[in-house]
């Protein structure tokens, strides 16, 4: 049995990963996935509707699915289970149970775009600051999600507050950075509400009872409307009703042009390939051209069918639109969107994260019972997680057509990836589960960080002109992030050394020695990568704006790591530090690397101040505080260490080389 444990566990998780390869079955006959795969242009890039939905939901609510509480009749075993366990609340009429259903991103998007009355009941807005909750009339201290309906009474209030804030920040470039937590939360809510409003007007004017028919009427009215308009301009007799109809359509669609969110209507053949437009703009153009864009007709058909709950018609509409795209040489865009939909659906980084956690638990279990099969199982799980991590990383690179690291989000993904490789190599060499735990832990933590970074918007956003060189992104950025990854691995190994040595008796001299060698080796590796990465950054700067070194905060951050590595290595060679001193220095390396990775971005100055994330600031401070405590532990004299108390009597090694020597 034990022998099979690694294989069985790996197989279970592999099956879980593979289960996502097939599109989830629809609960009814609507082929929503097929709709989710359709391409639109947003943020300068082609993406599927599904990505629009995910990114919007993430930025509004921090989650990519919508939970819906619905009364439901639970029959059979489910009903018995419900009444026995009481996990569900009873619905008011006492016969039904309130269960939680999940809306997929695409499902939510379709609803928001075509069934606004339903969408307005979904709890997707967030207010975290107690004062804001108070303003919205909610109970204090209860983390709440709000639906649009919950907020209708407060729309004016929120808007006024937001306007006032914007007014006070006018003309101050750094305005957004000086906001108080309350103001930030308020602006987030305000921005979310605007985004929601725009989404509701993306496929049809909000609440249009039958948009397909509306288009038909509109088409009929264009010609007479234009005649009336020309006549009225020429001062001749014209039909008042025709002109008025035209004017009201004009007003309606003008509004739409300024609200509609994604550029959903593709260019016609002969137009620029990136010339996508939103439906409002296209409708306004139809008015001039006296002809309605064929893609718009298909989209209207789809929207109306969904609004009217007509699954067959909806599926036909989607198929028709796909066909139209294909026959209009837009198959490249179709393919790109399909691939990204697939990427979204398998959620490689989320899956990797879960499996890393499982591996981490097994790794810790191994330290308790030292069963070799547990260690092998953990290793097998890390291999599985690493595979899906790698697939995700490569898939992303393929979708973007870029090297792995293009923004802070992808740097987290990549740092995790690099650290896992290093951890696995260490495990292969040293056994003992240390590399394993380090790999699983950093793999897990970096995915969490990446998840939080993804809340600020599209993670595959287009690159600023100045960053648009694949060669430097592939060299400088990759090398420097590898340096970060190795610094964190070294730091984590040191933490393992400190915690095991200080708190437990499990740090045998052999393990201590092995850890020291690992940390030392990894710091050498980190020195190599940080230095070369920093210099490559300098060369990029020299090539791009003629300045090898400009003392930009991010450059300085990288330099700090290099200097720290140099100090550590020289201190070690000079005998200024021994084992515990080296560990303390490796933990300082964690602090410096986190400052370089995140801290300098929070300064909000310099060329690299992309993604100002003040939300991460308390976390960074907490991290640094925890590291300082560990450093203090590391430099506590050896007689206070659980593992070293009886060192001199028990270990033959200590006779030749006392471990408690200078820090």
């Amino acid at each position, binding site marked *: 049995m034990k022998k099979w444990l690694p294989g069985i566990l790996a197989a279970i998780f592999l099956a879980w990963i593979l289960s996502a390869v097939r599109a989830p079955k629809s609960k009814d006959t609507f082929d929503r996935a097929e709709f989710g795969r359709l391409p639109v*242009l*947003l*943020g*300068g890039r082609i993406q599927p509707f599904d990505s629009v939905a995910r990114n919007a939901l993430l930025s509004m609510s921090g989650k990519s699915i919508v939970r819906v509480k619905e009364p439901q009749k639970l029959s059979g075993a489910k009903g018995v289970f419900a009444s026995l366990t009481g996990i569900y609340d009873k619905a008011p009429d006492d016969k039904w149970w309130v269960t939680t259903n999940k809306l997929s991103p695409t499902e939510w998007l379709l609803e928001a775009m075509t069934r606004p009355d339903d969408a307005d009941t979904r709890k997707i807005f967030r207010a975290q600051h107690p004062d804001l909750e108070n303003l919205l009339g909610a109970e204090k201290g209860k983390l709440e999600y709000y639906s649009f309906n919950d907020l209708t009474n407060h729309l004016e209030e929120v808007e006024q507050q937001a306007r006032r804030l914007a007014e006070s920040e006018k003309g101050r*470039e750094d305005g957004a950075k000086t906001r108080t937590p309350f103001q930030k939360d308020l602006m987030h809510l305000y921005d979310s509400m605007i985004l929601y409003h725009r989404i509701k007007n993306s496929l049809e004017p909000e609440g249009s009872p039958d948009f397909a028919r509306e288009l038909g009427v509109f088409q009929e009215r264009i010609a007479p409307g234009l005649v009336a308009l020309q006549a009225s301009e020429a001062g001749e007799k014209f039909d008042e009703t025709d002109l008025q109809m035209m004017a009201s359509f004009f007003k309606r669609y003008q509004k739409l042009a300024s609200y509609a969110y994604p*550029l959903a209507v593709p260019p016609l053949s002969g137009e620029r390939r*990136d*010339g*996508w437009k939103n439906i409002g703009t296209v409708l306004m153009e139809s008015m001039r051209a006296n002809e309605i864009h064929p893609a718009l007709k298909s989209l209207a058909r789809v929207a109306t069918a969904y609004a009217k709950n007509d699954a067959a018609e909806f599926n036909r509409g989607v198929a028709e639109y796909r066909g139209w795209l294909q026959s209009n040489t837009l198959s490249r865009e179709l393919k790109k969107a399909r691939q990204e939909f697939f990427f979204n659906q398998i959620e490689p980084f989320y899956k990797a994260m879960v499996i890393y956690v499982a591996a981490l638990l097994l790794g810790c279990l191994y330290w308790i019972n*030292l069963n*070799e099969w547990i260690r092998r199982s953990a290793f097998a799980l890390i291999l599985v997680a690493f595979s899906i991590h790698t697939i995700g990383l490569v898939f992303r690179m393929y979708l973007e057509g870029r090297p792995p690291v293009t923004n802070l989000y992808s740097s987290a993904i990549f740092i995790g990836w690099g650290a896992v490789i290093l951890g696995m190599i260490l495990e292969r*060499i040293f*056994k*003992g589960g240390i590399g394993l735990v380090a790999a699983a832990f950093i793999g897990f933590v970096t995915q969490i960080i990446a998840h939080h970074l993804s809340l600020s918007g599209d993670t595959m*956003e*287009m690159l*600023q*002109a*100045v960053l*648009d060189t694949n060669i430097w992104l592939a060299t400088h950025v990759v090398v420097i992030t590898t340096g970060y990854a190795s610094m964190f691995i070294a730091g984590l190994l040191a933490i393992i050394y400190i915690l095991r040595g200080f708190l437990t008796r499990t740090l*045998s001299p*052999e*393990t201590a*020695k092995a850890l020291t*060698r690992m940390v030392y*080796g990894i710091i*050498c*590796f980190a*020195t*190599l990568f940080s230095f*070369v990465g920093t*210099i*490559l950054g*300098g*060369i990029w700067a*020299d*090539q*791009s*704006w*003629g300045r*090898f070194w400009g*003392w*930009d905060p991010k450059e*300085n951050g990288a*330099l700090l790591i290099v*200097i*720290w590595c140099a*100090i550590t290595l*020289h*201190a070690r*060679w*000079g*005998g*200024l530090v021994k084992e515990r001193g080296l560990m303390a220095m490796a933990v300082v390396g964690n602090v410096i690397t986190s400052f370089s990775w995140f801290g*300098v971005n929070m*300064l909000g*100055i*310099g*060329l690299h101040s992309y993604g100002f994330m003040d939300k991460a600031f308390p976390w960074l401070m907490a991290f640094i505080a925890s590291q300082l405590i560990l450093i203090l532990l590391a430099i506590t004299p050896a007689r206070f260490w659980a593992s070293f108390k009886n060192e001199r009597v028990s270990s033959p*090694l200590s006779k030749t080389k006392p471990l408690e020597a200078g820090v």
Partner: protein
Amino acid sequence: MINRVISFFCSLRLTVALLSLALLLVFIGTLAQVKLGLYTAQSEYFRSLFIFWQPKGASWKIPVFPGGWLLGGLLLINLIAAHAKRFQLTKKKAGIFLIHGGLILLLLGQFLTELFQVESNIRFAEGETRNYSEDSRHNELAVIDVSSPDHDEVVSIPETLLAKGGEIHHPKLPFAIRVKNFFQNSEPAGPMIFAANNIKATEGIGKRLQFSPAPLVATMDDENKPTALLEIVSDKRPIGDWTVSLWLTKFPWNFSLGRKMGTLLGSALTEPQSFEFNGHTYQIALRPIRYYKPYQVTLLEFRHDLYAGTLTPKNFSSKIHLSDRAHGEERDVLIKMNDPLRYAGETFFQAGFDKFNDKITVLQVVKNPAAITPYLACTLVGAGLLTQFLMHLVSFGKKQKSKVSPAAKRSSPGKKIPVAAVAHERRSL
């Protein structure tokens, strides 16, 4: 005694101490940028011997921390001394020497760069021609005698002299210039806004356009725009007051005064201010320091594209015509981001566009005779690090192989970790 000095400068402890100080310096220097801005922080922390502490309002200051020059210099001495003392050409040390040789080159190269690098820029709109570039930080007061039909005579007075105030005399000028008021940063105040300390002149554009002082700016993409009120004096007899301002020369298109004011002032904003004296015509202007070149460039086309449906810049490019009669060069060049023009010892980079007028391209012009050193240094250090790393890896691999017997692999892990000797040997350096 001398031996002790030598061994002090060769010591590894000194290296560690200096590196630690450097670490602190870079850290506080980075934090200081938030308050002081990139440029000021650089000159106070990195391009200095000491960092000084000056109490508010005090005229004295005391050094509190070594600056970049001092630490860099000491590190350089330490490096060279240590290697000079212990130099042995062995295979084992080859990597170490490559690394440190590269570091010495890097430090020297940066030292030379600091001394000799000149950064300037050219900002122009399509159709305009320039035979000079302008310093991006330093300004001058130019007094130009334009009386001669075939050449102009330029007297240039650095901004720092204006900041000092008082009377400025120059042998080539038949009059003195008295600085009546000087704002290191200023903003246009418009005619309807009255404030006691506004600059208002009796002659030129300054009669109609006032300037008020503005707080100093520190961000990287912003700069101070000084304004001065100058009185031209001859034999104690005042000739008149003129306002000179960077607003009038570097940013004449940036007036957030509303359309009405713009039409009112019109071309008066960009026209040079001039006056007659002793039959000569003089123009005065406060402008960025100019570096004249023996050739000229004309902007043919400036493009900056955005990604569809966004405000994210996709690319910038300037198509220019380069004309160098002396060397017979007449050609068009396309300068793009990450794709500069190198000509006559200078490099022209596409830096961006003027933030007030997106029709104006900004080319960064850099002259750096030491530009090659980082490349050499990087190659040396990279090679050294790689050598060292591979040597370790190989020796580590060998040890690992000899230490781990197949039996040890299977035993329980608490005791099974191979007791290998520490992979590195202590090095003298």
